[in-house]
């Protein structure tokens, strides 16, 4: 079969891993923390216990964002 095509973000790039495999195994293999990403298989959101079939397309979408969320600067209370 064709393996599992994986789309990664920030920056956007693609790679391929042998399938089938579990969601948690894929995240561990690629060094992702579960809390920090969503896993979307063939356009559908999946839970951590899902198995990814060979030939599937997977997106690992990071959810951690943030920059200007800190407190207000001096001279401007908010």
């Amino acid at each position, binding site marked *: 079969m064709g393996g599992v095509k994986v789309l990664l*973000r*920030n*920056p*956007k790039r693609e790679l391929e891993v042998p399938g089938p495999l579990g969601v948690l195994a894929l995240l561990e293999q690629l060094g992702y*923390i*579960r*809390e*920090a*990403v*969503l896993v*979307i298989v063939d356009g*559908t*959101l*999946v*839970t*951590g*216990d899902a198995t990814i079939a060979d030939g599937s397309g997977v997106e690992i*979408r*990071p*959810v*951690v*964002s*943030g*920059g*200007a*969320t*800190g*407190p*207000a*600067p*001096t*001279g*401007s*209370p*908010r």
Partner: protein
Amino acid sequence: MKCKVCRRPAVVDVRRHNAAFCSDCFLGHCRAQVERAVKEHRMMGPDERVLVAVSGGKDSLALWDILLDIGYQADGLYIGLGIAGYSQPSGEHARAFAAARQAHLVEVDLPSDFGYDVKTGAAADRRVPCSACGLSKRHVFDRAALDGGYDVVATGHNLDDEAAVLLGNVLRWDVAYLARQRPVLPGGEGFPRKVKPLVKLGERETAAYCVLKGLDYQVEECPMSAGNRHLGYKEALNAIEERSPGTKAAFYNGFLDRGSALGAELCQDEREGLHPCPSCAAPTTAAVCAFCKLVERAGGDPRRRIPVTAL
């Protein structure tokens, strides 16, 4: 996994709740969490006019969508920051959402409306870009809300944002910042009321909400935020959360329950030194407000009008 509510196959697991949800039940869960936060913290009434701070990212679009679904009269305000490769697609996501929901989007563009962008502002004022960005956004949101006659500004700060800010404030024991880290900042003395209706939802939940609702948001991160301190705090908290689900919520909610009362007096004291900035009339404790200083140093004009129609 099965949905905790209806036992159909689940699509999202939320480990801190030890639960999984199908699409419909998850969307209902998100809406319920927002309604709970609004009620618990008395954020706003059903007839109040809300200005949602919209970046085009997952949190602000999820927030705007949920507030509209609940029935709030919620307009959006998008600020173009002039960040190459990022601001343009972000604005497109905000505009596309507004068009799809037939909602009103106010737009302010820092380069064309004030004569500077975040990068030049940061360099001129010797700040990191995230600090210049936050300062600019706060000023423009405040002014737009007051000029436009809105009752309240709603921002998309979620549980992860608040837990990360709390960790930073605690690591430095910054009591003044801790005092004002609340889900509601009251209005008055030149400030609009500000609320954070997403404080009961993690950012994995707001992202999942957008995916399941089909809301197209800006997935790629701001290039200027890479490696900032706030993201480092989130990484640390997520590493703990991975081992002990629920830690972030316990940390933040424990602060709200037991820690935030400490700062009430400090918050009040801080407002006592306020006066209008001679340049733009925004409240400040300094001779000239931080926003005017930054814009003038960057060669812009802080007194330009924000294109908000007063009602």
